[in-house]
């Protein structure tokens, strides 16, 4: 195939040319930046020869931008990007993003959010294109719904419309297990503070520590909401950590659950749940939002959106709207939320020691939450008339409904036929409320 040779030689000519460009670049470097600015300002096209066109084209290739990083290149927020972040930083980020793709697709790590987040990260790290700037696709999306914390609320509304509070209503006191698991949040808050104060590794402020600790709530939209509000610069790492560990719940939780319980406890069979009157389900979201209004209005946006979705579903008279919240609307917002969060995976923002710190604290948070839930389960079992299997406390960390499934699996491994799923769903959904309350407390502190 001679065509191939023809094109190959064209390609070689191109390559030869570009190496010349690279060589001559050194001389121009000093002059080029202001020149570019002047040209930009005037925006007048000036005559060029084909050679000049090709040279100036090469200068706008991403390859050149990565191989020859320059001082003064700015990110989407208008801050200078370091030479490292422009070159090896981008390469490293692409590697991390391919890892995220692998985890999302081959390992099933919460793909609905990790895949768009990672793709957003990929686009955010493309040099020259500046897609995270205010006129870029990712920047537009970010400003549309993440900077103002709107998209996480819409997601939460959809989640509310998908949530069934029946199991919690049939056994109210299991809500306390969902409270204990919030120790994951506050424990890791102390952990983040300690990491900053006692090691030189990271230097989180109190606000940043609080934003990170919400990972322990095991609730994606809540994490993104709080991170946008308290520490948007950490949003990318926090979201990635939250969704990654939520996907890892079946790996993280079982060992902790087994270590803190003995086989007898794990074999406890719980009483069948009572049937719940639909009216109880209908009133419940109103009760929750009124309590939030009276006790913790700072959690009103989160719980308000959640209660709205749940109330729309339970009312049974606006199925059009409740189905919409659970389908098209949540899908559209998920795409945008993922891309917008991914815009915070730029190399200069993400490749900092803080991200590693966030990963460590996130793991701590999930573990602490699980442990606290199980221990609270043991405590309640001791004081309660009806037997309580302490395993269901682990479901209190949320990660709805995965943690509840993990509980059921561990329980039935110990005693086949002992189905704990419905019993675990109580603490599971209470954990969502608990996390929103914890989030409200943190917001109220820093207001």
């Amino acid at each position, binding site marked *: 195939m001679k065509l191939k040779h023809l094109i190959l030689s064209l390609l070689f000519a191109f390559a030869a040319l570009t190496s010349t460009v690279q060589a001559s670049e050194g001389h121009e470097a000093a002059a080029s930046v202001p020149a570019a600015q002047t040209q930009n300002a005037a925006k007048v096209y000036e005559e060029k020869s084909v050679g000049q066109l090709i040279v100036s084209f090469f200068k706008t290739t991403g390859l050149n931008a990565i191989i020859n990083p320059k001082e003064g290149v700015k990110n989407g927020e208008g801050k200078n990007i370091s030479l490292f972040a422009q070159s090896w930083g981008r390469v490293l980020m692409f590697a991390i993003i391919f890892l995220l793709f692998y985890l999302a697709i081959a390992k099933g790590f919460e793909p609905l959010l990790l895949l768009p987040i990672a793709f957003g990260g990929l686009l955010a790290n493309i040099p020259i294109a500046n897609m995270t700037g205010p006129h870029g696709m990712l920047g537009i999306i970010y400003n549309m719904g993440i900077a103002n914390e709107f998209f996480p609320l819409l997601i939460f509304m959809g989640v509310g419309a*998908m949530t069934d509070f029946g199991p919690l209503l049939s056994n109210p006191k299991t809500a306390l297990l*969902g*409270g204990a698991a919030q*120790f994951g*949040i506050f424990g890791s808050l102390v952990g983040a503070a300690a990491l900053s104060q006692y090691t030189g590794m990271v230097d989180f402020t109190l606000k940043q520590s609080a934003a990170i600790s919400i990972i322990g709530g095991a609730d994606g939209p809540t994490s993104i909401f709080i991170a946008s509000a308290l520490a948007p610069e950490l949003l990318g790492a926090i979201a990635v950590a939250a969704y990654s560990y939520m996907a890892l719940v079946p790996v993280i939780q079982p060992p902790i659950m087994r270590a803190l319980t003995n086989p007898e406890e794990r074999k406890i069979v719980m009483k069948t749940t009572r049937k719940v009157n639909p009216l109880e389900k209908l009133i419940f979201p109103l009760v929750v939002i009124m309590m939030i209004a009276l006790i913790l209005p700072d959690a009103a946006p989160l719980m308000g959106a959640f209660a709205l979705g749940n109330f729309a579903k339970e009312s049974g008279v606006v199925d059009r709207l409740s189905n919409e919240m659970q389908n098209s609307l949540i899908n559209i917002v998920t795409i945008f939320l993922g891309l917008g969060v991914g815009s915070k995976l730029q190399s200069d923002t993400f490749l900092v020691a803080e991200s590693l710190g966030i990963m460590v604290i996130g793991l701590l948070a999930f573990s602490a939450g699980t442990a606290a839930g199980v221990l609270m389960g043991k405590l309640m079992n001791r004081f309660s008339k009806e037997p309580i299997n302490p395993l269901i406390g682990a479901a209190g960390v949320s990660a709805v409904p995965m943690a509840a499934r993990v509980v059921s699996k561990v329980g039935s491994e110990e005693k086949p036929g002992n189905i704990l799923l419905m019993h675990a769903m109580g603490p599971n959904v209470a954990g969502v409320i608990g996390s929103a309350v914890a989030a409200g407390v943190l917001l109220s502190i820093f207001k």
Partner: protein
Amino acid sequence: MEYSLVGESLKFMILGMLIVFVFLYVLVEVMKLQAKIISKYFPEKEIPVSTSASSTTDTDEEARRTAAIIAAVTEFRKKK
């Protein structure tokens, strides 16, 4: 910063866990009360809301319906 990060965050922990537990405890009591009132004054038969016809909105029912559609189509495809 003249304050101790760890010190402050420990205080936050106390405040936070306190509020979380108080909130959920009140919620538990309200849920119990509500169940009592509803089972007394609005037993299942006489619910004033029109949920009887729309019980199909329960998520599991929803799932079952979706499953039914998928099954129907799958079966249809097999027949072809």
